[in-house]
């Protein structure tokens, strides 16, 4: 695996000092100043590192993996490449979004700053969505990913209501490209099969995943093929990190030891497996 030149350059900017003995994350502690960029071409692209982490993790039994995402908000430019890569990867119709980028403006001109927060599914330790499902169609996999059995799901949308992160959506069976310029049939790229959960599903009226609740799966189908999630590989700022937290040598395991680590709605008691660094 070779690092692209762009990746190397970006890694040079990024290169968080993953110093040994970094202070343990303290909830509510003031965010540490960003570490000084470590310059030098010897640094490899984080994607290359995560790819090696992934290959190591896949050699382990599934129940010994613990997939975790870490998002460094200092690096996020709000470009929404992750969101669009996700839409393309999972062939998402209107109303279904797995990963959004929340935007917030802080301060007043001239002291103003735009703040971006990408929000995938948190793949919670104690998911609020799975416990309310009346038909056990959504469940937590041994590797921590919260999955949906599309054939079981009755589409009651209780999980959509119960998720404290708004991370679930409902597939209404619509298309972006119908009723556009006199066109009644959707463009083929909207009806091509999606490979979620490793099942190739086209979009046929009233058939799953239409009429189902849908959510981010950390691109489980890609992971199983040895590929990183689409949002990770497309992040131009290298702000999103992914890997197996059970592997102490992995990049995410290192990042989990950084100062300034926090989780969304910690007080909800859901134990999100997506961490933010800021």
């Amino acid at each position, binding site marked *: 695996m070779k690092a692209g030149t762009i990746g190397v350059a970006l890694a040079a900017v990024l290169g968080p000092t993953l110093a040994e003995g970094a202070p343990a994350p303290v909830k509510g502690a003031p965010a540490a100043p960003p570490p000084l960029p470590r310059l030098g071409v010897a640094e490899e692209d984080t994607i290359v590192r995560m790819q090696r982490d992934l290959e190591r993790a896949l050699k382990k039994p599934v129940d010994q993996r613990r997939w975790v995402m870490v998002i460094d908000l200092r690096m996020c430019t709000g470009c929404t490449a992750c969101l669009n890569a996700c839409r393309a990867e999972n062939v998402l119709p209107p109303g279904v979004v797995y990963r959004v980028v929340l*935007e917030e403006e802080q301060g007043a001109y001239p002291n103003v700053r735009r703040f971006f927060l990408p929000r995938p599914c948190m793949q919670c330790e104690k998911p*609020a969505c799975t416990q309310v499902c009346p*038909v*056990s169609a959504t469940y937590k996999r041994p590797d921590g990913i919260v999955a949906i059995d599309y054939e079981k799901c*009755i589409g009651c*949308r209780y999980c959509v209501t119960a998720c*404290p992160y708004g991370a679930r959506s409902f597939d209404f069976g619509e298309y972006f490209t119908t009723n556009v310029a006199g066109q009644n049939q959707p463009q083929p790229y909207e009806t091509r099969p999606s490979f979620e959960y490793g099942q190739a599903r086209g979009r046929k009226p009233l058939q799953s995943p239409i009429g189902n609740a849908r959510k981010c799966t950390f691109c489980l189908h890609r992971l199983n093929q040895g590929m990183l999630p689409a949002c990770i590989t497309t992040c131009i700022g290298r702000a999103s990190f992914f890997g197996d937290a059970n592997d102490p040598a992995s990049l995410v395991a290192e990042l989990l030891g950084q100062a300034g680590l926090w989780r969304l709605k910690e007080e909800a008691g859901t134990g999100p497996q997506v961490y933010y660094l800021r």
Partner: protein
Amino acid sequence: MRRIFYLVIGLLTAGGLGLLIQRLTWGLAVTRLTSAVPWGLWIAIYIYFVGLSAGSFLLSTLIYVFGLKQLERVGRLSLLAAIVSLFGAMLFVLIDLGHPERALQMIFSWHVTSVMAWEFLFYIAYIFLMVAELWYLMRDDLYRASQTEGGIRGTLARVLTFGYRQPADAAAAAATDQKAHSIVKVLGILGLPLAIGVHGGTGAIFGVVAARPYWNSGLFPILFIVSALASGAALITFLFALLGRRDGEYLSILQRLAGLMILFISLDALLLSAEFLVHLYRGMESHSAQYQLLFGRYALLFWGGEVGFGMVLPTLIVAFRRNSAAWLGGAGLSMLLGIVAVRFNIVVPAYWEPMLKGLDRAVTDPRFSFLYTPGVLEAGLTIGMIAMMVLAFALAVEALPFYELAPGQSKAGVKSGIKVTAGL
């Protein structure tokens, strides 16, 4: 009058069935629901009917369990209303599913931690119990009808007796009658926790959702029960005003029912104000559901529908027009309309507050809108399906022996409403 009633209800039902085909063809794309407001009008009507059912049933237990003899004449009517309402509730939850054809997964893939899964079991047990109770109350009349009546009514009665025969000699007949009464009492007692579970549990579906602060209160299931009692009393007041035999008891029964209704409304108002006052003094923020109800987007529905039609108007009518059966029936109707607003205001405002700051602005896609107003098809299908329930109820009242309602030789006093010709 009767013809016009059946014509209107029949047309509405036919229209509703047409829209139902649309719904089944196009899925939930026909609704204006979004991923941000995933539950809307149909879920509101579902809890409306569950409430009517639980309320009517609990009213019937006042008669058969607690021996409130004065109201005995509305006993069967309450039970029938409870049964039809629960079927209505199931119908609305069914059309709201993304995959209605998989509804039975609720049994085959039952999930112990889901309140909704438990509710489904409750509904099934509850329907069986109510049907059994009504049958035991009716079997003697059914038997008589099977002997004396011809036509559809006679045939139906013969089928529905399920081979039951009333003993010819008086002593044995009295004994079976006694037995039926004790069975009804047992079923009524078992039905009490069941009916409370049915509607309190429906409240718990919402109450347990920690992510929605508006719902997430221990008071919520109790509020559901109390408003169910109020709506049940309102339904029976309205129905009895419309269908009851105009005799000496007619007005006094209505007054009793209306009195019960006001009692339940008062309790409901107490719980509601308790909920809201706590929020007000906590310093409610403008993006909370409660703020939107009191002063914002849902204020008209709250003050006009929930408080005006649902509380103030019925109370004033019962206080000042208590000697007019038509007014009392109107009080019931006003309350029935008000409760629709109550149910809508339970479901939809909870989605007002975005789960995360900025989530409402993150996606520009109508299916992610945080503003929900029911669409024309949603509303039309709702009216059509309600018409179907009314039709089913009217036909049941006509075809089954509801002699206690029959006009018989009573004085003509049928100024408003339909005259049910059950005895003819």
